[in-house]
């Protein structure tokens, strides 16, 4: 005999709990908003609307673990994009992007753009250096020059970078 399928969908239960926890934290944050006199805020205080949204999100999140019961395709459809684990390359890419944005403060936007154009293709397996090197220099230079010279955007040079603008 086949075991009866659970009414609660595990991954969505976890998801709902995460959302509810987030809502709880943000609800607490709304309680730290500065108080204003009801007359001044026309009886609609600064925390009223965000709390309404948080309640809405929390109520909707409560439905998530049971959603598979009324969605066409059920669990299979809801799990379509998350059945495969996040690939290590995606995590490595996220980590590299984080580092490169951190680097903007140190080396400035122009050099950071060069670093992106060099390291991201390398991470993704590009080894044709005759293509990669000109790309890593010319493309960022063209983009930063376009924004700096044509669109007059000033790029902060960073601690030891250089600026266009």
């Amino acid at each position, binding site marked *: 005999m086949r075991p009866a399928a659970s009414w609660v969908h595990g991954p969505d239960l976890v*998801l709902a709990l995460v*959302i509810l926890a987030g809502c709880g934290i943000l609800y607490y*944050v*709304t309680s730290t*908003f500065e108080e*204003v006199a009801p007359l*001044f*805020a*026309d009886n*609609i205080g*600064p925390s*009223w*609307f*965000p709390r309404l*949204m948080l309640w*809405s*999100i929390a109520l*909707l*999140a409560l439905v*998530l673990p049971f*959603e598979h019961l*009324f*969605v*066409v*395709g059920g669990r299979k*459809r*809801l799990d379509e*994009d*998350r059945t495969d684990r996040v*690939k290590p*390359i*995606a995590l*490595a*890419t*996220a980590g590299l*992007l984080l580092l490169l*944005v951190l680097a903007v*403060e140190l080396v400035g*936007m122009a050099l*950071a*753009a060069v670093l*992106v*154009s060099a390291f*991201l*293709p390398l991470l*993704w*397996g*590009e080894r044709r250096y005759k*293509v990669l090197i000109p*790309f890593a220099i010319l*493309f*960022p230079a063209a*983009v930063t020059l376009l*924004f700096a010279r*044509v*669109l*007059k*955007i*000033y790029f*902060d040079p960073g601690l030891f970078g250089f600026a266009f603008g």
Partner: protein
Amino acid sequence: MEYLLHGFGEVLEPYNLMVILIGVLVGVLVGALPGLSSPMAVALLIPFTLTLEPVPAIAMLAALYCAGTFGGSITAILINAPGTPPAVATAFDGYPMAKRGEAGRALGMAAVASVIGGVFSLIVFLLATPWLARVALEFRPQEYFALTLFALSMLASISGRSSIRNLISGALGILLGTVGVHLTSGVERFTFGVAELTDGIHFVPVLIGLFAMSELLAQSSTAKIAYERITSIVIKLPSKADFLKVRWTLLRSSCIGTFIGILPAEGSTVAAIIGYNEAKRFSKDKAEFGKGAIEGIAGPEAANNAATGGAMVPTLALGIPGSATAAVILAALVAHGVRPGPRLLNDTPEFVYVIFAAMLIANLMFFAIGLGGAKVFSRITLIPRTLLWPAVFVFSMVGAYSAASSLADVWIMLLAGFAGFVMQRHGFGAAPLVMGLILGRLVEESLSQSMIIFDNNWLRFFESPICLLFFALTLLGLFWSPLISALQRRGAPRRVPGAAP
């Protein structure tokens, strides 16, 4: 008429024509590249357009929107990789046609159907926008609140695979819209002491993050995929026989696309799929569908391009975006100091006609460029993804920074990208979040004003017939899909064990 002529006069200036041409070229290129989408391209172009005058800036984005939808069909037909989601249905019959040596015929039909759909919807846009704006002028805050609720519910119910998740996304977007100083009381909300957040979260970095960064992370796993391509292409305009065969499909799909576009939801993709299904339903050669039926190209292509003009109607007349790309264009209009909505036609009517003229010219331009340059555009898929996506990141980083010359915006873009990636995996749509973020202020203002008018009595919302209508439509939109699925399950015959599925 005077404003219409003025609109054409503005758009036909050489500088604006050049800007529209750039928009069309970028649109077709982006549309042809699998993974790059119209909302992403418009989001990436906003920082660039901020330095332009509002007219060329909006004309460029509108042109990109039209051309991007068509561009997707080129790679859908030639390499079976739809450049954009609205072109998915085009690949069903386009690629089989290309494989049997009829790529040129398929591309020719795609271009003609796209232009017919696009021009048809623009005529509706021209007639419906002023009418809808006049109706909306009568709206009070409570009706506006009901309308925005309806818009969000439509997006939730139509796009993606789960309306609950899309509603959560929309509510999260609205919540993000509350970051910054509260307009009535001047109190800071969710700023966490970060000075850059006092003015609220800017649209541009969030849009770039959600549409470009999250896709970049998703694409990181597929960077080495190579496409099989059809190389021998001689573009052919549809023959008289082809045209006679698809004439009713073109008309039907143009109507469907325009109607779907006008509904505040994810227009083009839904329109294309319905256009395809209806073309099949009314066809005499149903068995040909999926094997290379010419109606299978005309149906979705006319519908997806018709949705672009349709989507601009609620965007401009009500300030409620008709699609994800229209939501990004709405954000661009706001960034240029233009507030779409019923007052737009009173205060700056020339804008509406400039957008109309720009989209019309864009349709004609991509027809010529698409027919003449399809072979060239199909070759852009030869650009290695290992270089394409880093280039997108450089453009995103510089673009996010340029919107307000703030590094905080680059961080916001990156965080939005990470969040978008996680959301995508769990079935939460980016479009509802964007729509929520853009409409957040309007929702809060209209609800707060209504509550003040009603002396905090919720029940008084039900005194307005317009509110009642929108609430009823909201409920219908939200429960229609689960209701139909429940009925289908109940009505489905029980499977006999061992029987073939």
